[in-house]
């Protein structure tokens, strides 16, 4: 039996899972992310986002240049809550939602 082709290592999302999602009509990377969980693990899509975007370009026949990333939100690397909490001397914590894109 063929083994799993892992696209998203953190969440164990396979190439079959992506094909299943697109067969159900999900074609935008944000939809596929929400449906499969791709890119929602500890690495936040650093390894899998591009593979997913290129897969969607191939599947939908769109040129890759039309492909979009999913929204990048803080923090892009793990940060201890204590690090944020100890910043209290500077007034409010950074609370922004980030602009994303």
């Amino acid at each position, binding site marked *: 039996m063929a083994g*799993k*082709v892992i696209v998203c290592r953190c969440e*164990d999302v*396979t190439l079959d899972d992506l094909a299943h999602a697109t067969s159900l009509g999900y074609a935008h990377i944000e939809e596929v992310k929400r449906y499969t969980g791709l890119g929602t693990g500890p690495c936040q899509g650093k390894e899998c986002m591009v593979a997913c975007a290129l897969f969607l370009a191939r599947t939908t026949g769109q040129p890759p*240049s039309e492909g979009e990333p999913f929204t990048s939100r*803080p*923090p*892009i*690397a793990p940060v201890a809550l204590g*690090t944020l909490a100890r910043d209290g001397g500077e007034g409010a914590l950074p609370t922004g939602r980030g602009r994303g894109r």
Partner: protein
Amino acid sequence: MSAPRRPDCAVELDGEAVPAVAGEPVAVSLFAAGVRVLSHSAKYHRPRSFFCLSGHCGACLMRVDGEPNVRACRAPAREGLKVERQNAFPSGKLDLLAATDWLFPRGMDHHTMFTHPRPVNALMQKVVHQLGGLGRLPDRSDPPLGEVHGERVSVDVAIVGGGPAGLSAALACAGEGRRIALFDEGDRAGGSLLCHPAHGPDAGRALADRAAEAGVAIHEGASAFAWYPEDEGGLLAVDDRGTLTRVFARRFVYATGGFDVNALFADNDRPGIFAARAVGALLVRHRVLAGQRPLVLGDSPYAAALADALGAAGCEVTRVDGVSERAVAARGHAWVSALEIEGPAGLRRVKCDAVAVATTPAPASDLPRQHGVRVALSEAAGGFACVVDERGATSVPGVFACGDVCGYRGVDGARAHGEAVGRAVAASLDEER
């Protein structure tokens, strides 16, 4: 080349002593001592080792010093350091939950699984709650906050990333009283220089020293993790070894490089299948061979340089270019034992004890994207690359980018690009005067 590796202390893995070199990443210590499986994946409990060795892939999460989900590739080894496998039942050595992988060979669709009938659904919810999540809470809580402290850094130029591009940009921009701060997430600056056989840690150190002598404030172990546009007119948040540093600058330069990505083939996540740059870092920086019979997959100049260096170190190296021949499947379970290769002559099996995957790194554009920088996807660039003009200026005024984050260039290309962009940043500041 630096001296051979000599263990000088011992860490404790699930209660057993493992020799280590103080200061090296504990993931490297464990691997060098023959420990193969570091973690199990969240859903199917597939065995995992490290992949990127640079803090980006999430494959090496372990419980370190009583703290869950620590990246073992970034945790320095020291005498008596406690390291534990997590996310396994009953133990890291014997993970019965790995049965999930066998029970669902075609994958599981959690949208429809066990949703009916109701009692089964209720039971499954209980089970899933027990199994879900990664790791257990820390052994101890942080000490009371006590004195709160955050840092502020206000400079003319803030550079994120201390690889060949960022360091060269800093050097080219330095002088005439310009205040420049550079933040690198690695324990020491150098980026991709540190894993390149033709460069290595000494080259990285030399470049960083020159930049420091030119007056650049270099922050190592400082991870820029967010751009907050709403706070104080926009600030870059940096975790500088546990201290939150708010960075304000007239110019920002993103030299964040690229993330290592795997190739797509069956069982491509087997332990022993590493990013080529991880294999390079093991060899060049940590003096550890990834295997006796490594297979290098890819046709880039870096793949060639790595294969040569491994050969010179005494390994029996196989090269597969990934173009005329490509990998279709890995063999081996807890460690890779062979790769199935498909080429014009059909299918063949190549035995190996490690694989170095040299795909094009994906531009690390997540932080510039938060800053509003326009990116474009292309396969040749390796992913979503920052769009820049000939001066390195992005779509956001005052924000520049250079090196692999603008599309993969490799060490020499990144260095040249960084230099050019560094000069352009200096010129743009001069114009303002």
